[in-house]
């Protein structure tokens, strides 16, 4: 068995058990009958592997990239490392390990915190991206400067995705970039938004929570380019934004360029729904800060993850928009 990379060298993706696997039934038991019955059920059904969850195809694609990276750079530790991060009791541990074995996943690291918050462990593993079904934990992670998103079970219809090429799609504002422009739009409307963007075309946008993750993907892509594998690169990234190519899109592209980043494709929808476009792209995961877009994408079969960041969030208490934004400039590893 080959060595597992050290956390500080790898691109660590932490996934909770409920997004990696489908644990709907068990979750229901937990909510209706409590912890004891839930754990008893898990132990009784230990030999029954869980079905794949929303993050499963994404994780499989990460492994495909690793295989290609190992072929080209056998000594390197710059690989994806998937850690199972769950605050489940370890009583459910055997069923999770059996499931990992059944699906032949390459997950060797896990934390079952027995009810304690996993947030500290995310830091201990130098986590680059955290995916969970629990929006509270995702918010906590974002507040700690860790890229994170909430995943939901996609409806029955699921777009088929590639098993050999990892495809990741990002919204722009409040995901790759800060939410400053969205705040203008929310407060003053569309016209003011366009005006503002035109005036500030040459001013760089600030970093958003997923900028670091895009950067990590870009770093890996360059490793394939260096070995003449640009056309056959197993990683492809997309910007899918409501901005318009004619106007407000310029600022987004200029910002990315100045960061030394790029996406393979940039799709400016000028406010049109994202679902149909995503259906064509077939990403393994799509990150957006607005639930409306996440749901829209999901309905058409795309696995979409919600980044609860910025002014678009409807918090239970009306907090001022500024409070929920965190400076992500130091977040990249």
């Amino acid at each position, binding site marked *: *068995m080959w*060595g*597992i990379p*050290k*956390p500080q060298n790898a691109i660590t993706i932490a996934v909770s058990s409920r997004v990696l696997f489908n644990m709907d039934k068990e979750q229901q038991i937990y909510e209706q009958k409590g*912890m*004891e019955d839930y*754990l008893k059920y898990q132990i009784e059904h230990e030999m029954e592997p869980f079905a794949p969850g929303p993050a499963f195809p994404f994780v499989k694609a990460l492994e495909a990239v690793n295989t290609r990276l190992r072929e080209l750079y056998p000594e390197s530790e710059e690989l994806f490392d998937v850690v199972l991060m769950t605050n489940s*009791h*370890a*009583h459910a*541990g*055997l069923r999770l*390990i*059996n499931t*990992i*074995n059944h699906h032949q996943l390459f*997950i*060797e*690291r*896990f*934390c*079952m*915190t*027995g*009810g*304690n918050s996993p947030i*500290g*462990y995310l*830091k*201990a*593993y130098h986590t680059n991206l955290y995916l969970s079904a629990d929006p509270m934990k995702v918010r906590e992670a974002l507040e700690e400067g860790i890229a994170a998103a909430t995943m939901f079970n996609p409806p029955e219809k699921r777009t088929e995705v590639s098993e050999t090429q990892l495809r990741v799609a990002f919204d722009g504002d409040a995901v790759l970039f800060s939410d400053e422009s969205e705040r203008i739009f929310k407060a003053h409307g569309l016209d003011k938004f366009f005006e503002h963007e035109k005036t500030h075309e040459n001013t760089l946008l600030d970093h958003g929570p997923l900028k670091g993750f895009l950067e990590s993907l870009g770093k890996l892509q360059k490793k394939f380019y260096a070995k003449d594998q640009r056309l056959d690169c197993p990683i492809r990234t997309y910007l899918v934004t409501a901005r318009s190519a004619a106007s407000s899109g310029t600022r987004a592209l200029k910002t990315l360029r100045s960061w030394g980043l790029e996406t393979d494709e940039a799709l400016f929808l000028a406010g049109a729904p994202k679902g149909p476009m995503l259906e064509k792209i077939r990403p393994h995961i799509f990150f957006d800060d607005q639930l409306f877009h996440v749901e829209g994408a999901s309905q058409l079969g795309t696995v979409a993850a919600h980044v609860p960041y910025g002014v678009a969030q409807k918090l239970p208490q009306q907090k001022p928009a500024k409070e929920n934004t965190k400076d992500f400039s130091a977040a990249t590893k």
Partner: protein
Amino acid sequence: MDSMVRNPDVKQRDAAQAVVVAVSSDAIFTPEVEQVHGATEPLRKGDAFSFMKAIQVVNERLLTLNSDETLLFDVILLSNDSEEKHSRIIASAKHYGLDIGRFCFCNKEDSIESLQSNNVKLFLSTDTNDVCKALQKGVPAALLYHQTDPHHQTEDQLKVVFSGDVIGSSEEMLHGLREQGFTETQLQGFKTAKGSVKEFAILMGEMRRRFGLEGSPLCTGLMTAWSSRDVCASALKTLRGWGLLVDEAFCLAGAPRSPILNLVRPHIICLDGLYHMEGFTAMS
């Protein structure tokens, strides 16, 4: 030859039924840099203090549930100090109200014999070397984890972490360790760890079952530092067979242990008896 002194302030446990652990005096009270003759003030608290307090909480909760409970922790303080310090140690234990059943004063060379003749289930020390040496000599031992942040030590819950590498290990694994260059002495430590953990795990399982899933003053965990997830699974199954269902489980696959341990904050860690583990590549 040792001198065993009963602590008059603590109700004596039934040593045959209790979980007898021996703790080094240097762990409970900070060793003094300068020995001042005739000093009488209490000794300063050592690294194992939060452990002592946590043990007390467990014992108290057990007795609250059942005043006739015999499955309690029974602590023996093991001291190699000079005679003039003995009374001061006893007085300090009284001063802090520590739940120490007996004081065992002996020479360093006689320590092992004292441990073996007093039905000690585990010798606990904050020094990794001492723990490994004890294991290598066949004495069941575990590490009292030195928590670096004094403001974050847990005193109201005792945490015990077992080694998945030890419990889930196979003969092939021992062979693999030999090939990796570990000496027979070190491997003896591993074998002792494996041989002695069962008894302690069974006792912890029994004790853990006295409490419910949540709000337990005793929390158990499994940590697999360098073995694969299958070894971890094997360890979980084995522990369950011994009656212990752990609360937390961690599989590190070679990742540095300190950042994780600083979050888990265990009091007792059952080591694998080998020395340096950082930088170890994971093996199946």
